[in-house]
Each structure stands twice: as C-alpha cells, then as structure tokens.
C-alpha cells in the first residue's frame, strides 16, 4: 500500500491559505532561533486531486458496515444511521467551543442533560457521567469510582476485583490501572459464573466484581441476581460492562440486576460509528451511593437554564478535559429519539432472533461448546474442523466469500473461538448466505485445506505476516532506507 510519502510532492503555486493581511514582523524577531524549527518536517503536500485519490483508494481497501455483514462478536457492528452524521455536523453544535460561556451553549448543554437522563433511565440507575470516551475508559472511570468509594468508607483495603475468565481484556487492564488486583473466576459448564467459586472469594478485601451481561459467550447469567446479592452482602460493588446491552435493549435494566456501575458503549449499542477504532463514548451510570463521586463538571438544570456544576467535593475529578465526546453523544441521542421504546425493543428482538437463528443453523456444522439459548451473539469453536485448520484460517477464508470474519480467539475459554454477532440490522437472506459460506468452508477444510491456509485470496493483500511486524518493527515511513 503506497503511503502519501511515496507520492509526488507538489509545491503548491497557489493559495491554499489566506494571504497574510497584517504587517509581518518575521520569525526572526518573534521567536528565539534556538526555539525555531531548523528543518521542515518531511511531509509532502499533495494537490487536492491527488489527495482525494489517495484516500479514496485507501478507503476502498477497507470493509465497512455498508459493504456487508460484519459479525464481529462483542462489537455490535450495526448500521450507522446517516442522519446522525448530518446532525453532528450542524454548525451550531460543531463550532461550539467547550470554554464558551454557558449562555452561548444552552442547546449543547440541554442535549447533554437529556442524554444523561435517558441513560439513567435505560440503566435503571441514578446518575450518569458522559465523560468516558470509550468502553474501556468507562471501565477505568468505574474502577476509580470504586477506589474512591472504599477510601471514603474507610475500607481502603478492598482491592480485589473478581472477574469471570470469560471477561474482555480491557476489564483486568482497567482494574489494574486503578490499582486493584484481579482475581479470575472460573465459569461453570453452562458458561456462567460458578457460584461456589464466587462464594469462596468473598472476603473483606473484596472490592467488587466486573461482569458482562450477557457474558461474552452471549449467555445471560441465570443466577445474576444471586451473584450480585452475594457480592453486595460481602460489602462489594458490582460493575457491569455494557458492551452487550444490545441483547436486552428495551427489556431489562442493569440496575434491576444489581449493578452499581454500568458503562454504555455507544459505538456498539447506540449506533455511533466505530471510525476504524474510535472515537466512541462510554458513559457510566451509577447507583445512588456512588453518585456524588462522579466526575466533574456535571450538567445541572436550574429553572430553564442549563449549567455546569463543579460543586461535588467528593468527586474523583475529571476523566475528560471537557464533557465527553459531544459529537458521539449527539448521534446516540438522535438514534434513541428515532427508535423510541418500541424501536429499542425491536433491536433486541431482532438481534437475539438473528443470533439464535445463526447458532441453530451453524451448530450443525461447527462445535458449539455452550449449547443453549443465546442472546445477541454466540461462540463456536473452530477446532478440529479439518487437518491443521485453525480458526484464523476460517476467518481469512470468510473474506474470500465476501464477509467480514467474526471475532476470533475471544473469549479465551473457548478453544479456537469464533464469536459471532449478527446484530438486528441483518436480514435473513444475509444470514442464510453466511451459513452457506461457513458450510462450504467447513467442507473445504476437509477437502482442500490449502484453500484455507492460503486465504484470503480475494483481498487487497494476501495473509499478512504479523510476527514480522513485531520482530522487525517499521512504525514510521523509512525515509532514509533504500526502498
């Protein structure tokens, strides 16, 4: 893939920038020479036509949601409504400066206020911070809240966080960053939290548990109420990772399951685009006992005016320089307004229906380690499908069939995992075509395994050598190297 550094350098003759309209004093006079740049950065300028072509070409090397099924488990790759994009670009919103006087940004504050309220109702929890910029950032916020909570209660020794072995990797990393130690809980044969094991970990150093509901196997913890009750009885708090909220949107609320902290993942559940890796939004809702600890500033309504409220002396501080990812929050707000309660229910209905339909059809061909009603996703094992065939091979071969592969090798408790989440947006036709491709791949695995090993063949590049990237790291353009 050629980069812009490989391209023709244009020295623009014309004016891209306005002409200087004030008398110039000169760099020499204004900046001490020791603080001036001595040589220009090695950055080419492309003519606009070339710029357009370069990035149009790059875009075509990508696979997006508008290109087809994107069944990345745990990622909820649903359609990103176009209207979201337009509204986030309205100049009154896009140009508003975060340091403007409150009187100039009443509309923006009002919107944030509404979003907080909607989220708090959705979560069934008392208060919300909109600051976290992604799911993992929400987790970190939650962990900071727990830490502060126990410090305030005079229980600073509560430093153990329980985590099912099916948890997403960001959970332990977040807990760790906040100074907690992580204890892994084994899952039982149903893929759920093992209550006996849980009971064995309930001591006075327990800070809490981090759960994903439904869990990363796509299974709803049947004993969820017992789990949260046990943790609460032991003086701990329950953190819920909301990555999988799509499964019960419009039907159930984490607060009613015993959650004390819950993070939303807007770029999954609430239709905001993932942008090739962000920006996202990971607002956090908390139960009453944690609400005074939330980050500042918070948005407050006084009469008909909206204000920033800094007056929370127990607050953990700030997780974001301003009020969270406003542009992303706006898109989710639009989405919720469009859907309303009925639309939200339709989401979970179709998401779960699609997942179960796929699960039922695919388990004929692939191993389904936890065979039960699933929610919005399910996890197959790609092991033993053919001689020397790995899940990676299956994934790459799916590319040849025109599909984005599922999430692979996660959760860790399933060998050669294939984690499949179709979302509510896919229609039955697409699901049937996907099943057909998977069945053909299973057949190929036995008959023509080379086709899998050498896949993808129909992608812009063939299989890439990830090991080499780590062993011989080339992380910036090698200007000086002979290419």
């Amino acid at each position, binding site marked *: 893939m050629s980069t812009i550094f490989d391209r023709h350098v244009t020295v623009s003759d014309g004016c891209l920038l306005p002409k200087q309209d004030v008398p110039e004093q000169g760099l020499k006079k204004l900046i001490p020479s020791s603080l001036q*740049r001595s040589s220009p950065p090695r950055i080419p300028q492309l003519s606009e036509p070339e710029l357009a072509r370069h990035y149009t070409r790059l875009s075509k090397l990508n696979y997006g949601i508008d290109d087809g099924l994107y069944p990345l488990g745990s990622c909820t790759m649903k359609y990103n409504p176009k209207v979201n994009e337009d509204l986030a670009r309205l100049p009154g919103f896009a140009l508003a400066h975060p340091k403007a006087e409150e009187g100039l940004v009443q509309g923006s504050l009002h919107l944030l206020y509404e979003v907080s309220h909607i989220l708090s109702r959705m979560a069934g929890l008392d208060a919300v911070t909109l600051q976290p910029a992604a799911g993992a950032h929400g987790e970190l916020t939650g962990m900071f809240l727990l830490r502060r909570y126990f410090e305030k209660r005079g229980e600073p020794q509560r430093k153990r966080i329980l985590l099912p072995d099916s948890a997403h990797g960001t959970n332990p990393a977040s807990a760790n960053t906040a100074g907690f130690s992580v204890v892994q809980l084994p899952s039982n044969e149903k893929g759920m939290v093992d209550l006996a094991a849980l009971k064995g970990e309930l001591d006075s150093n327990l800070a809490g548990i981090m759960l994903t509901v439904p869990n990363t196997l796509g299974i709803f913890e049947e004993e969820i109420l017992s789990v949260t009750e046990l943790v609460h009885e032991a003086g701990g708090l329950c953190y819920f990772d909301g990555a999988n909220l799509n499964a019960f949107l419009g039907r159930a609320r984490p607060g009613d399951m015993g959650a004390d902290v819950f993070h939303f993942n807007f770029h999954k559940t609430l239709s905001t685009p993932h942008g090739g890796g962000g920006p996202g939004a990971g607002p956090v809702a908390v139960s009453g006992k944690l609400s005074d600890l939330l980050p500042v500033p918070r948005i407050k309504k006084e009469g008909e005016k909206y204000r920033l409220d800094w007056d929370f002396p127990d607050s953990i501080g700030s997780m974001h320089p301003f009020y969270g990812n406003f542009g992303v929050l706006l898109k989710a707000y639009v989405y919720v307004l469009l859907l309303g309660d009925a639309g939200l229910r339709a989401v979970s209905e179709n998401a779960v*229906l699609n997942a179960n339909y796929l699960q039922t059809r695919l388990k004929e061909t692939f191993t389904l380690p936890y065979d039960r009603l699933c929610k919005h996703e399910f996890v197959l094992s790609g092991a033993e499908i053919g001689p020397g065939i790995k899940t990676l091979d299956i994934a790459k071969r799916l590319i040849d069939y025109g599909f984005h592969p599922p999430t692979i090798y996660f959760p860790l408790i399933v060998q050669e995992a294939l984690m499949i989440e179709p979302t509510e947006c896919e229609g039955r036709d697409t699901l049937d075509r996907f099943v057909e491709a998977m069945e053909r791949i299973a057949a190929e695995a036995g008959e023509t395994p080379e086709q899998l090993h050498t896949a993808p063949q129909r992608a812009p590049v063939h299989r890439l050598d990830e090991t080499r990237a780590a062993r011989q790291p080339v992380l910036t353009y090698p200007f000086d190297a002979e290419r």
Partner: protein
Amino acid sequence: MQYVTNTKKDREQMLAALGLNSIEGLFSDIPRPIKEKFQGLELSEKSELEVVSALKRLEAQNANWENMTSFLGGGIYDHYIPSIVSHLISRSEFYTAYTPYQPEISQGTLTAMFEFQTMICELTGMEIANASLYDGATALAEAVIMAERIVGMGRMAVARSLVPDFRRVLDTYCGAAGIDVVEVPYTGRGQLDLRAIPADISALAIQSPNAFGVIEDPTQLDLGDGLLIVVANPISLGILAPPGELGADVVVGEGQPLGLPASFGGPLLGFFATHRRWLRKVPGRISGRTVDRDGKEGYVMAFQTREQHIRRERATSNICTNSALCALAATIYIASLGAEGLGELARLNLEKAHYLADRICSLPGYKLAFQAPFFNEFTIHVPVDPHRIRDSLKQAGFLVTDPGELEALGMQEALRFAVTEKRTREQLDSLVEKLGGIK
C-alpha cells in the same frame, strides 16, 4: 423500524426454525423479577423529519456560532478545516469500520494510521508514535503512567502553567494510580521556574506554548532519571523546534487543531510520541509495516501483545477504542498542507497574534502579562475588571476565555487571546476598537 431488515414473515419463519412460538421465548433466560421491574423511556418512535427538527431547535438554543468571532483557545482552536477532510473521512468504508482486527480488509485504516504516526514523529521530533489516544489530557496522563512504570519514583512534577483541563485529568489519574503530583511554579516571564523542580521524580510535564501562551525553553532542564514530557500544540510545530530536539522524552498533545471541529470539546484526538526504546511500553494501537505471503507490503496492528487481549492484567494500558477517525482527519489535514503549508499556517497564526498583541498593548493600561515569546495565544494584563471586559466583548460577538481560568493559575486582571488564520485584520482591529471603548 427502518434499521431492521427482517420482515414480519421472516421473523415468524425464523422463530419456527428455532422451535419457538413467540419472541418472548428468546428472552426466557432473563429472570422474571428483572423483566417485571423494567420501565421504558416513555419515548415514542419518531420519524427522521421530526428528529431533525428537534435537533435544529436544540441547535437554535445555542448562540449562532457562525457569527461569533472567537479568540477562545487554551487547547481547542478555531482553525479552518478544508472541505476535503470531511468528504474523505465520510467515506463509509472509513467511518463505519471497526478497529482493524482483520488487516487484509483494513489496509485503508492501517495505512492511514502509519501515515499519522510518521507525521506525528516528523512534527514532534520523536522516533515512534501511536495511532491516537482519546484526547490530549488523557494522553498526558498515559505518558505519566508510562513514565512511572519506567522510572518508578512514585511522584511526578507538573508545571503550574499547564491548562487546567489537562491538569484535572492528570490529577485524577495520578490520584488513582498512586502517583504524587508536585506543582512547579512559573517565573515572572511566565515560564517554568527551573529552580523549583523537585528531585526524584518519574517525570516532569510541561506545556509549550503553555496556558498563558508562552513558549517554554526546556533546553536547560536536567531531570536525572525523570522523563521530560512535553505537551505541544501541533500547529505551532510548523515553525517551532520539535520538542524531541529540545530534550523531550515523551511528546503528547491535543490534535484538535489538526482539522477537527471544536464540537463542544469532543471527540478529540490525543497524540503520543516517544523514544523507540519504549516501544513495548506505549499505550494504544500502533500500525506497523509488514509483508503478505507473497512479499507484498502491507500493514498490521503491531505489538498487540502489549494490549489487553493477550496479556490481560499485564497490559501496557487499557486503551482499546481510541480516536482513529480523528487521526485520519488529522492525517488528511496535514497532507493537504504539507511541510510548506504547515509553516505558512503557523506563520499566519504567529504574525496575526503578534499584530493583535501589539495593537492591544497600544491601548492605555493594557500590556502583555509576560515578556516571553508566544505563538498564537497570549495573555494580557488589563486595566479594567476582566470579567466585565469579557461580557462587553461578548455583546459585540467577540469571545474570550473566562478570566477565572487564569485567576486559578494565579494571574489576576488578565485575559487570554488566541488568534488563528481565520481572524482577519478587520476583526482584530475591531476587537481593539471595542476594547478601547470599555472603561
């Protein structure tokens, strides 16, 4: 619901295939008490037309931002964004894609990440850079955490002249991570007081230009084992020396000036650059060049082993989703200017800011708060209550930052002005005229 593709008939047939006779059967595993407690939002479904109207009504509750003349800054600046940036990042292949877990069908994102990393290194003078973090403030916090992991002193120092938005986040992270934060005062020139730097620190964090707009000179610093972290304004690096050449060990900053709208403070773009030797300690995604089976060049996310998926609790950081699309915007923005354009842009900002400063200082009682070099933002000592000035200016459509921000940093009776290439001489002159009329 217009985003659902299954028809009613599809649903019936699929349910039948599952041996279920109602949708409720799909949710039989959710304990009844939970379902019984459920309450909805009490929102009815709405058409796009209605929601667009609703959002435009909200927008109208804001001031008419297109008619404002902004001198707001302090990290978020009012630069012109070429139209092409939004057009290109609006290609759905870019903005709807997930993190590039499957590199063979994500070469667009990965190549652009690689370009971004290269550009950040060129601008900052560092060897490596990541593909983005949430924003400049958390990037600084991540830098401090990395420094603590490397140096391990349990404390760090920070210049008092750091913008408060960054400082709040830094304090929050350090508090939770158990890192003590020591503040280093500024001199009468508004620069770091070199004599007041504590010993035994994992890092010193400074910002340049700082919260007063003043350019720091870190060349004389000696931190022992401690790392120098510099928060930089990327636009200034078109003409200012790359911090890497001035001794920085980590350069972080807010990338919003590189083609992102202010958007009421988010989404933003954190950048993070450092020495090659700390490659495996850097938080966030990194794109690396490799080859495919046929030896053809391509890109992958390198060093995923640093990340949570693999090493879990020993992960370098918990960053997963970051700010990829903003980084793409910045990449396109930078490429639209090139090195020359970046220099020209920086000079436009510099000269206009100095013109305005000079003009303001010609008013009786107004003077620069600090005799030190500045870029596109400067602090003025004012002869009238600055809050009153701010109010009067607002009436005329001129926006400046709350003087309270400067007061909190120990600067009374002062106002800060940021000037970008968008400000015309006419606007600058009329600001001065307006100022002159405030008694």
